């Protein structure tokens, strides 16, 4: 090993090949976080949320299908807010789990308590 080899090795530190320079999926999502959805998507999301809220109120007049339809509409509304307004769709996947796991725990607690309902 000569001094020239050492100089070249030190100079290579921090240099990336074209393949390495390409952003990984995680890095890409980080880039997208800064931009997120455009305002048209925000407004469409709001209109959809308003329409789903009207649908929820109307569904209460359908006795048989009330509960399943309400749960479906509620999940759709939560998904819209979390995905587009909270940008979770554009963020790192770990944040989705940070949000979903407590909700699953809440569902488990509710189901565990359900035998107490008379």
């Amino acid at each position, binding site marked *: 090993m*000569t001094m020239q080899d050492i100089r070249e090795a030190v100079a290579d530190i*921090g240099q990336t090949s074209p393949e390495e320079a390409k952003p990984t999926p995680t890095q890409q999502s980080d880039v997208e976080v800064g931009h997120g959805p455009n305002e048209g998507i*925000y407004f469409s999301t709001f209109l959809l949320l308003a329409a789903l809220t009207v649908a929820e109120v109307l569904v*209460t007049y359908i006795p048989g299908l009330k509960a399943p339809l309400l749960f479906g509409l*509620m999940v759709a509304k939560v998904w819209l807010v979390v995905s587009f307004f909270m940008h979770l769709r554009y963020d790192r996947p770990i944040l989705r789990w*940070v949000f979903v796991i407590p909700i699953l725990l809440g569902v488990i*607690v*509710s189901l565990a308590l359900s035998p107490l*309902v008379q």
Partner: protein
Amino acid sequence: MQSELATGTIPSQNVEPVLVAGENAHAGHKDNSENKKFAIWLFLSSESILFSVMIAAMLLVRWQYPEEHALLNIPLTSLSSFVLLGSSYMVVRALAGIQAGNRKKFTRSLFLVVALGIVFLGFQVYEFQVLAHEGLRLNSGPFGFAFFTLTGFHGFHVIIGVVWALRVFINALNGQFTATDHFGVEFFGLYWHFVDVVWIFIFTIIYLL
């Protein structure tokens, strides 16, 4: 050469710096913002557990007290839902405004967030007064206790959100936040949307179901 290696001194000519000061600072700033975002999601996660348990408790008493449940004002809370959804839209509109460098749109949208938050609280105070007049109170029984604890706790979060929004609005008027530096707005937005999500659950499960 051996003496150079032994002393660890390597001539610096032709050696490019690995990271310049600006890049290092930028990387640190970005990592910090990602850590902060992760931290606020963890906070929201803990809040989710708290609200989940309260909603579960409310579900326990919901079916046992149909007379009390019939007192709930669906048209008023439907209107409240639209107000809160509108405020959530204003938060993302404010974020889009500052990201585009449009300060007028940014500050106006933030003002509307504060205003709509206060309107929501006004509706809730009115609802509580009407319910109290009709005999449903915090100490009137299990239904009243579970209902007022849950909705009151949510209302408390809205109060915090309104104060926070007001703070962000004042900072925005003072020229804080730029198109590239607006983490404060983003973090407030996450909190406010979370409060909206909790209301979506409460409105559907407690009022409509």
